[in-house]
């Protein structure tokens, strides 16, 4: 025992806890465990987490280059499509798995004291591992299609960081609400589908009618994907600032990201002490 044990007073569980080291350890171990389970649980492991986006890519590629011939006007359309699928897939995976993350971990929440925020964060981290692996595949495609490596590729890191903040905010918000309202899940499934078509995954932002292009850029997903096209695929494509009409206007999608994240944190902190008993 310590010579002078600290007296602690508390009234219940919290979202963040008071031990940062344990917070980080827990988040990492939960994410790594989930990752391992998906990796080693089946014969082909990681192959299956890759086959879904690749299959989607294959179908869309066929439709838009062979049937509709939409991709002909877009330089390196297949690579853009693949990269966009992976990035949007990260957002979709994080949030849709995040919705019921608290409910799935009921056993832990009811039996162990630990900072509640660990659970949504571990979901994001897990999806981030997948994204990392998927981006290696994207990189292979990028190089194979003859795109020259450029320093601008490094812009991918802040772009992914924005996506992580957005996805984490949504996950915190939805997982906390799902404990009380179980129809959050089907609602979010529909919302994700709408977001898929509302974001420039199968099309590019510059293909939008000029009248709605600037409004569409208010969505952080659209802004991130637009800038990704410029930075990674085609230096000739418009930057996010050009698409929205001025660098200052980029504060709008940024504000959306911050607002969603703040709302998520606020709701989660408010719900955290009661999560275990409401499950």
């Amino acid at each position: 025992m310590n010579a002078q044990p600290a007296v602690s007073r508390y009234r219940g569980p919290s979202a963040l806890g008071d031990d940062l080291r344990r917070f980080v350890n827990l988040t990492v171990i939960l994410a790594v465990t989930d990752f391992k389970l998906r990796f080693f649980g089946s014969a082909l492991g990681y192959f299956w987490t890759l086959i879904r986006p690749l299959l989607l890519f294959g179908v869309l590629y066929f439709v838009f280059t062979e049937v509709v011939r939409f991709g002909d006007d877009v330089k390196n359309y297949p690579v853009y499509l693949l990269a966009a699928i992976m990035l949007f897939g990260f957002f979709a995976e994080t949030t849709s798995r995040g919705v019921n993350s608290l409910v799935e971990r009921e056993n832990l929440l009811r039996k162990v004291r630990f900072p509640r925020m660990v659970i949504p964060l571990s979901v994001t981290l897990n999806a981030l591992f997948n994204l990392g692996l998927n981006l290696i595949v994207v990189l292979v495609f990028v190089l194979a299609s003859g795109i020259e490596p450029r320093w601008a590729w490094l812009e991918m890191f802040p772009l992914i960081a924005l996506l992580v903040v957005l996805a984490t905010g949504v996950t915190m918000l939805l997982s906390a609400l799902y404990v009380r309202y179980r129809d959050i899940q089907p609602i979010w499934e529909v919302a994700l589908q709408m977001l898929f078509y509302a974001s420039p995954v199968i099309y590019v932002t510059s293909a939008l009618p000029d009248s709605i292009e600037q409004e569409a850029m208010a969505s952080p997903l659209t802004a991130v994907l637009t800038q990704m096209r410029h930075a990674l695929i085609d230096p000739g494509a418009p930057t996010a600032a050009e698409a929205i009409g001025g660098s200052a206007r980029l504060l709008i999608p940024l504000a959306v990201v911050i607002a969603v994240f703040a709302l998520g944190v606020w709701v989660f902190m408010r719900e955290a002490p009661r999560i275990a008993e409401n499950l």
Partner: protein
Amino acid sequence: MSKAFRLPHQHYSTLKERALHPFDSRSYDVLQAVDDLSFEVKTGEFFGIVGRNGSGKSTLLKCLAGIYGIDAGRIEINGRLSPFIELGVGFNPDLTARDNVVINAIMLGLSRREARRRFDEIIEFAELEEFVDLKLKNYSSGMSVRLGFSVAVQVDADVLLVDEVLAVGDAAFQRKCFDQFTRMRSEGRTILLVTHDMSTVERFCDRAMLLERGSMLSIGPPDEVSQLYNEVNFGRLDDADTAGAEPGQTVRIGRVWCEDTHGARLETAGHGQTCRACMELEFRRPVAFPVFTMTFRNDMRHTIFRATSMPHPAPGEFRAGDRATVRFSFQNLLAPSHYTLTPGVGEWDDGYRLLEQRDDVASLIVESDLQSGGVADLPTELEIVRS
């Protein structure tokens, strides 16, 4: 501190239902699971919390552990508190014991490096060296409990919260668990134990608390608390008629234990060994013809064997204030199991009348190499005639 749960009459958990019944959903019952409870546990104490099902003891433990928030009052803890209340929480059946141990240890507050460093110790304590790389779903329930306990004792917390852990595991491992608790207590750690098992409370606890409907019924020495517990449960557990006698008024049963023929205390007995089941008594009013009994129940709570003083010479009259120690010697022919001892004192007066009985206050573990499957292993002689 207090803790209430809102129990909705009908749980509306979808938006549609909430929209259709906007006002109905506001009606709920309030269940006061823990009601204005206040108590203090000293450093280094082994503290028992007992009570019937639904008396609020598990809720209390969860509040103490910081899993449920409390409505009123405050909790103060001196030192580090163990963050779990159950063994093997978060064990994943699809991972090997090796992975699970590391994950569990981190969950309980160790760092990755510490978890790896103590790994061998944990596995050795659980006696599972051969099965380290076996997936947990292939473990028996006893094995995973052993693993869970082994990780849990590695957690260096000053205050441990334990919910009914001792009801599992085989006799040998239970004894190991008890040894660990004794060691922890000698290191000055504080242990709070929730249990139904009065013999555990009496053997290990320094003090105990009895809860009933979220309130404290009594707090104090374990033997008094367990006596009260049995009184609270009297109607349900007791099979004999106690009408006319206030429990504890006529005679008080003190310590109850088993010993060998040299008077050394027995926790475990081998087959065939001569044992003595003992109880200490204090008479509060005169009893002309007392009858002493000692009932052995096995872990299925079947009565296996009841020693009684009836066939023996009459013990003579006891006056108020007389104290006595009663010893039943017997040759242990019981099958290997975990037995509990229930002492009883009755009076013979134109018929038998039970004065005092305390259920399951002591225990005896019987070990034997022979697992016959019966409840007793009587000596046999074998004759085989070939024809």
